[in-house]
């Protein structure tokens, strides 16, 4: 939302987020390396690096994938979402360290290109147990690489939120590839059930959270009142909307956020122009609707960001009759000014 370019808009929350992340990473690596040195004193430094970076990257990947559904289920987790991209880039860095060390360790001493060696040193493509599992990791890492280099808002603006979001949804394919990498690799060699058990627990948690959140969202998308008058649909009463907050309704093609503020009611698209965050779950701060994901702001009566910012969202006609809120689900073009409906407090 910056009017002038700044590579990263640092603020206190981002710094705290990153310090916690760095501290966790250092703690994890210290504990993992110490425990392994005690249990396997003969372990080589290369193996330690390969294993510690791999387990850390997989753990971070699970945390990243859990943040989305957790915020859908409970807004208390929203602070985790705020700087998720730093978490993603960190995860990619450790995944890349694992991949590079593994290629150097297992494929660099031959007389063919190490990357080519990854594909041709084991050609049991027709066997499940002897399948060259490394290539799953390679392709997953390629996806994470694309995601990491496009994680900056520069790419979000240039690719458009829709394409950017679609590209970043490849994370699910990457996750499936990582699971296959572990199942057909580690599971085939590792005698201890620890890592596989942890992976299974992680998957069950992840799956349960996503399915629960998906069910909740689908239910919300279907909820409609069905009472229509002159193109307006009855959506709620004034009292159903908390002050300086919104009620989200699902009418037409997309969700609409109905905000109550200063004895007025305005309706805008629920979809933030930045990363399609749910505006209706945000609050009105300093007279502006503030997206709960990254703080993008819009004026409630015209859906435009305050100058000098240029983001705009669609607006809707709304009226209040006998304390009941009626909404016309036909959107006006982004940034169109609509007179807010007014009501009298009891």
């Amino acid at each position, binding site marked *: 939302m910056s009017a002038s370019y700044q590579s990263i808009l640092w603020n206190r929350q981002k710094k705290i987020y990153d310090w916690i992340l760095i501290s966790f990473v250092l703690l994890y690596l210290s504990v993992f390396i110490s425990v392994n040195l005690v249990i396997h004193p003969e372990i080589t430094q290369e193996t330690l690096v390969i294993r510690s970076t791999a387990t850390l990257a997989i753990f971070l990947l699970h945390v990243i994938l859990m943040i989305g559904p957790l915020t859908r289920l409970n807004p208390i987790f929203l602070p985790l979402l705020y700087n998720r991209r730093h978490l993603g880039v960190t995860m990619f860095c450790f995944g890349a360290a694992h991949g590079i060390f593994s290629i150097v360790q297992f494929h660099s001493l031959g007389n063919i290109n190490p990357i080519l060696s990854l594909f041709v040193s084991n050609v049991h493509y027709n066997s499940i147990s002897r399948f060259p599992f490394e290539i799953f990791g390679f392709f997953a890492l390629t996806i994470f690489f694309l995601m990491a280099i496009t994680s900056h808002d520069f790419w979000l603006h240039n690719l458009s939120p829709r394409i950017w979001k679609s590209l970043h949804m490849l994370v699910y394919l990457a*996750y499936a590839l990582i699971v296959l990498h572990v199942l057909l690799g580690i599971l085939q060699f590792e005698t201890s059930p620890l890592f596989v058990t942890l992976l299974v627990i992680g998957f069950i948690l992840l799956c349960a959270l996503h399915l629960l959140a998906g069910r909740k969202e689908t239910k919300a998308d279907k909820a409609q009142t069905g009472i229509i008058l002159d193109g307006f649909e009855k959506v709620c009463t004034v009292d159903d909307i908390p002050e300086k907050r919104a009620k989200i309704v699902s009418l037409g093609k997309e969700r609409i956020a109905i905000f109550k503020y200063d004895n007025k009611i305005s309706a805008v698209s629920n979809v933030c122009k930045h990363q399609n965050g749910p505006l209706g779950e945000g609050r009105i701060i300093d007279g502006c609707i503030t997206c709960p994901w990254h703080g993008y702001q819009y004026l409630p009566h015209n859906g435009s960001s305050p100058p000098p910012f240029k983001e705009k969202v669609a607006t809707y006609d709304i009226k209040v009759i006998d304390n009941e809120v009626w909404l016309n689900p036909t959107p006006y073009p982004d940034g169109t000014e609509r007179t807010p409906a007014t009501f009298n407090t009891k």
Partner: protein
Amino acid sequence: MIKPLRSVHFVVWRVLALAIPIALALALVVRPQRSAEQKNVDNFRFTSLRQDSSFQITIHVLNPLTTPSCSVFAVDEQQKILLGRLATKGTYLFNTRVSTKHVLLFDGIHKKEIVTYLISTDL
């Protein structure tokens, strides 16, 4: 998030919820019977792995070699097969015959045996 992406998310996770448990079960079922042993001999760590009908030897050169040449041979009752050569510090992986009884590291220049690694009969 927009409605179409929400639907895609939900579909993707329903597919993953089915596909990954199937993949896990399959991976457990096809898990090969393996036996392995690891032994340090002088400057080398040998790891031998028998899996179904294949045999794999990993040689980890712990410190720089002190011989000008180091060839690796797999020896069984009938023949001696050249597997490759060791050069710098690092890990070398060779696939060889199941019937291999021992692995011989040989300095071809000095015509001298460097190390012989006897594979356990239990393996």
